[in-house]
């Protein structure tokens, strides 16, 4: 299954909708979108993850990359992640870096 992203930026928040399967084949695509998003003056990255049906460690690496690019005061929030995806974030010990919320 393909992986697609939709990016929008308002004020200091970039929103990326993630759709499909995020593995090491598709993670470079997310990496590029994150770089594009962070070219604007952004302090918060919101990831709409309700349609993210799969995520491997390659996806986690892209998200941590975003978190680190945003600096100490930045934040990365993942919204509506399916149970399995959210569990992978927790298991990787990344809850402090990537905040999980239901909606």
């Amino acid at each position: 299954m393909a992986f697609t992203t939709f990016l929008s930026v308002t004020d200091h928040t970039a929103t990326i909708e993630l759709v499909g399967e995020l593995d090491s084949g598709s993670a470079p695509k997310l990496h590029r979108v994150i770089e594009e998003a962070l070219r604007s003056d952004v302090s918060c990255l919101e990831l709409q993850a309700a349609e993210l049906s799969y995520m491997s460690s390659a996806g986690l690496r892209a998200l941590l990359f975003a978190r680190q690019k945003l600096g100490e005061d930045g934040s990365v929030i993942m919204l509506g992640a399916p149970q399995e995806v959210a569990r992978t974030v927790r298991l990787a010990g990344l809850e402090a870096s990537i905040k999980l919320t239901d909606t």
Partner: protein
Amino acid sequence: MDAITVPASLASLEEVAGYVRALAEQGSLPARAAYNLRLAVDEIVTNIIMHGYREGPGEIRVSGGLERDHVWLQVADQAPPFDPRTVDSGPQPNTPPMDMQLGGLGLFLALKAVDGFSYEFTNGTNINTLTMSSASYGGCS
């Protein structure tokens, strides 16, 4: 299930995922166990491509089958010997986000995701064997 042999390329991940999906269906694995088995195989195959063959040419053979109470899946390659269990790469809960690194995380997730894992190096071949109990929801909780 009949084995498949794929080139050591990230483009092969989709075919491997399809194989795991089909095996999980045949074995009537619950959705969560099927997801975890796919995650484990994905991470192990990715590691073979990126670090085993160092993104060079090579082949990866994936085979699998059903037993009475579990599904097994084997990933074999001819890259240099490498036992995934030797990588110490657990989460770093006390590390600030800015200092965190994720080397080895994939294999950590892989080994957590399955019910059983074994490794052997025989006749120049790395053989990784993963098992998932049919009644299980996966060890990844």
